[in-house]
């Protein structure tokens, strides 16, 4: 590891957790602010049912900007998502200009709408389980996302979501 690897790894971890909080709080601009212009985002899964790697959603930075800008125009389930992220590994390149990280996440849906908000609101339900596979650009003591693959285990997704995961 580079002599500054430990510091760089810490910066990467910090960025992943900041992204988690921005996404939880639906501060989409803050989240995109952690991403490079060439950022690429994908939600993927493997389906044993059809024996295929699948891509449920993908896009570049511009696509994600459009996606979040249009969110207020869509009807959507109002129940907020809460991510529990644990950074498992951070690998900093020898030149300390880039890094990759793997994090596990569990996402709960804190019911607001539910099936019947009179009954369901206030309850937290398991929504998604998976791992983030992230790639970062390291510069000026900061880590910015170049790529995020959200690899989910779920193929049962019920109502799904409009929001970045």
């Amino acid at each position, binding site marked *: 590891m580079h002599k500054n690897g430990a510091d760089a790894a810490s910066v990467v971890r910090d960025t992943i957790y900041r992204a988690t909080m921005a996404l939880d709080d639906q501060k989409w601009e803050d989240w995109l602010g952690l991403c490079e212009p060439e950022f690429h985002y994908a939600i993927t899964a493997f389906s044993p049912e059809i*024996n295929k790697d699948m*891509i449920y*959603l993908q896009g570049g930075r511009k696509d994600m900007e459009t996606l979040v800008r249009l969110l207020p125009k869509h009807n959507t389930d109002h129940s907020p998502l809460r991510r529990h992220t644990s950074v498992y590994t951070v690998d900093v390149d020898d030149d300390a200009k880039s890094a990759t990280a793997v994090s596990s996440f569990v996402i709960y849906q804190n019911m607001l709408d539910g099936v019947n908000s009179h009954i369901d609101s206030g309850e937290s339900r398991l929504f998604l389980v998976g791992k983030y596979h992230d790639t970062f650009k390291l510069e000026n003591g900061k880590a910015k996302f170049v790529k995020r693959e959200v690899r989910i285990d779920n193929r049962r997704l019920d109502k*799904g979501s409009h929001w970045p995961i």
Partner: protein
Amino acid sequence: MPARNHTQWKANPGLEPGEWVDSRVYSDQTIFENEVDQIFKRVWVPLCHESELPKPYDFRTASIGGEPIIITRGPDNEVRAFLNVCPHRGMLIERRPSGSFLEGQPSGNPKRITCMFHAWQFDMKGNCVYVAREKEGYQDRLCKEDAGLRRLRCEVKFGGFVWVNLDDNPKIGLEEWAGEPFQCLRENIDAEPLEVFHYHKAIIDTNYKLWHDTNSEFYHDFMHYHNRVTGFNDAYFARKNFAFKNGHVVVGTFEVNYENYEGFESRGELSFPHLPPNQWYMVDLFPGFNFNLRGSALRCDIVTPLGPDKVMIEFRGLGLKRDTPEERQTRINHHNSIWGPFGRNLHEDLIGVAGQGTTMRPGTEPRNILHGRHENQTIHDEIGMRHYYDEWGRWMNRLPNNPDQPWQERNKEDAVAVAE
């Protein structure tokens, strides 16, 4: 009219018979059980696509009406379906959703369907080929030749989907059942092999027919941003619904102008074979299957009713088997940007039917659900639902707007005209 009192709320809505249904058809446990026995166990159900079991000895499992089913591809390349039940003591034979029998299992040999419980083994044609300690236990009273699997009617048809019917003697064959509505898509989906690239499922607390209703009406365009803001134009509103015998409906095509949709691109270059650029056909099959070809990607919804207020919907996306990786990627993007679990429209459609399910729980007060829009069979006409519930009434021998009463054919002038 101001808000209504209970009597007014419950009154006949003032529409013609066939233009509304009683919400008990969506919530009553007995009606649901009748539907499973009288409809789902007697109709052709598309259970999967042949590309999900591409090689000999591949298998796929599914169910109809609670009956577990296994679909296999034999060494002769034939796709067959059997009840996934061991004839010995009723064990579920194969527990995985898919896989291959080429390799042996802990209790059995390669190339055999093996029940793990007592190691009875079957070949790809459903013949029992091994009963553990057969002579010792059964002497000559029962032999493996008498212990084959329960075979099921199975055909690969209409773009390579695997259709199964639990009824050994179905009312009509698959071609007669669905050939006419599929005519609009046949040269597109039968020109060359297709392949599934997308699968996910939703289990929603709602009745299965409410999902099919949503697929049968486009009036819910108002729920979707792109549809309500940029999708409406004269050509769109002229798009017609066509009713076919057996309760099926086809939504005719029109040319989609994707340049009007922010964040979308034309699908013309990757249109399915023989499909003019950016055209869009949809086939709604009774009692709950949808085939939706939107230029470059084919979507298929299959419902599995789980209760009067619970349904599993399986969503598939398909492209051409010969796609290059780049072409496939583009098709996936086209499919999922709208229809994926994180796409723009599907989430809203599912919220819609979940909301209907909330108000139509078993035990809730019956109410009128309106299907009475007439707009010359065009896109916001609710002809699809009226036609569906006429067929439902025949199969169930119940009047949809008064399900305690037996079915009565409507006057010819009031009934939905079936396409010739």
